[in-house]
């Protein structure tokens, strides 16, 4: 092997070694053995079907309970599966839902949380739902008394915003039901508009951490 060949081999081997080390370094930096593996149970709340007229449908059954949502940061307030009150195994974050495109979605929410004032009473209006109403314990309303509100289920991209009535004391629940229609395929986020967390202006904690008072809806 002459001198030039040796140099070429040396450069090639060195380049390969540097590349391998760089790849391993990136992989090592990407892997965090201590990272919390967030397991969202949202799809357990969803039932997909087809109506007699061929209309695709989806039902999302949720609940809101104070300080029992064992999401990424422990037991905070948050949206959960609807049987969370009786089944501790359901006290997990319910934040990611998959529903069909152009479907009629029915949402029922059992709210066990108390009432919290809205910063912006605009969100007492029921928006974007079928008929412009929600049913609170079976009674249709289009605007909620701001003194009764607790949270909202708001999907800005679909123009949907529904106030959730809070319980007057510390026991029982209020049952909300509403329907909305999905459009084309895509991903939209949902969130609670009421500043029901803590910290600066109530937007800390569960309002700022994924999996409690916000999440995503995959349509399609």
């Amino acid at each position, binding site marked *: 092997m002459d001198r030039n060949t040796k140099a070429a081999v040396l450069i090639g081997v060195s380049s390969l070694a540097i590349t391998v080390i760089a790849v391993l370094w990136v992989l090592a930096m990407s892997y965090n053995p201590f990272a919390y593996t967030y397991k969202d149970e949202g799809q357990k709340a969803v039932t997909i079907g087809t109506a007699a007229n061929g209309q695709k449908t989806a039902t999302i059954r949720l609940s809101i309970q104070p*300080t029992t949502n064992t999401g990424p940061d422990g037991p*905070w307030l948050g949206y959960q599966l609807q049987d969370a009150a009786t089944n501790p195994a359901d006290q997990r974050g319910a934040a990611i839902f998959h529903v069909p495109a152009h479907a009629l979605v029915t949402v029922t929410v059992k709210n066990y949380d108390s009432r*919290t*004032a809205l*910063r*912006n*009473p*605009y969100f*007492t*209006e029921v*928006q974007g739902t079928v008929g*412009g109403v929600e049913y609170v314990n079976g009674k249709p309303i*289009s*605007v909620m*008394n*701001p003194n009764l509100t607790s949270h909202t289920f*708001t999907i*800005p*991209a679909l*123009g949907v*915003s529904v106030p959730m009535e809070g319980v007057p004391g510390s026991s029982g629940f209020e049952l909300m039901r509403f329907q909305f229609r999905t459009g084309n395929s895509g991903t939209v*986020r949902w*969130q609670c*508009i009421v*500043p*029901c*967390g*803590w*910290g*600066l*202006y*109530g*937007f*800390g*904690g569960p*309002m*700022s*951490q*994924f999996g409690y008072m*916000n999440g995503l809806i995959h349509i399609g």
Partner: protein
Amino acid sequence: MRTHGIRIFAIWLVLTIIAEVFIGVVPVPSPVGSDEALGAHQTVYMLFYVAAPFFTFVWAMLIYNVVVFRRRGGDTGDGPPVSDSTPALLIWAAISFTAVVFLAGWGTFTLHEITQADGPNTQHIQVIGQQWIWTYRYPQFGGAESDVLVLPVKHSVEFDITSLDVVHSLWIRDLDIKEDAVPGVVNHAFLFARHTASSNQAGNNWVVCNELCGLYHGYMRSRMRIVPYAAWQAWGKALEAHERANGLLKTLPKYSSKYFPPPVVPPAPQDQST
């Protein structure tokens, strides 16, 4: 020396003509949907037009000197001594000073023009930012509120911008409107829309947040429409009638240019234990 000067001048002249034509031909990607955007657009162009001759002069001098006065093979001696030229320095300083003062004057005048209401019939619209949604109140329609921004075309509009939580920034790129939304503070921005428009799937004419404001900052955007004045009036009156009929208007606070209802903040879990 005179020959060198003539050559440099010729090179500079050619480069400058090319640069000025290039600036005129290649569109600067800035919006012109409003008078305010047009003012900023024209200022950007003026800056380029005035700066181009200086840019080309520096490059003409640099390239000419590198090529003509470079050290050739075997040449190890010093170059000829260089002496100052007071007239040249004065001319350079005077031209630079004039250009800078002209641009400062142009920019100041434009800034003054685009940051004030255009006429007495200005329509106020209150912009409220909160994590992570924009809403708009219309005092001329009984203080009705909407999550869609609807504007009259060819009418002066003043935005009264605030936030309920953290700092947001109202940005309508196609209208060149960008102003911070700060909790407890009312900031103002002005607009005179030049043509009708509406949000589209291509991403034009959306109201977005331009200040990193938390988890869903990237999703904080709302639709916008610019419509003829009569259509704007009809839309606003319909909105007011709707919100009056369903009782929402009664639940909204009385309209005020400052909007900052007191926050009611639950204590954090660790606070509850103490």
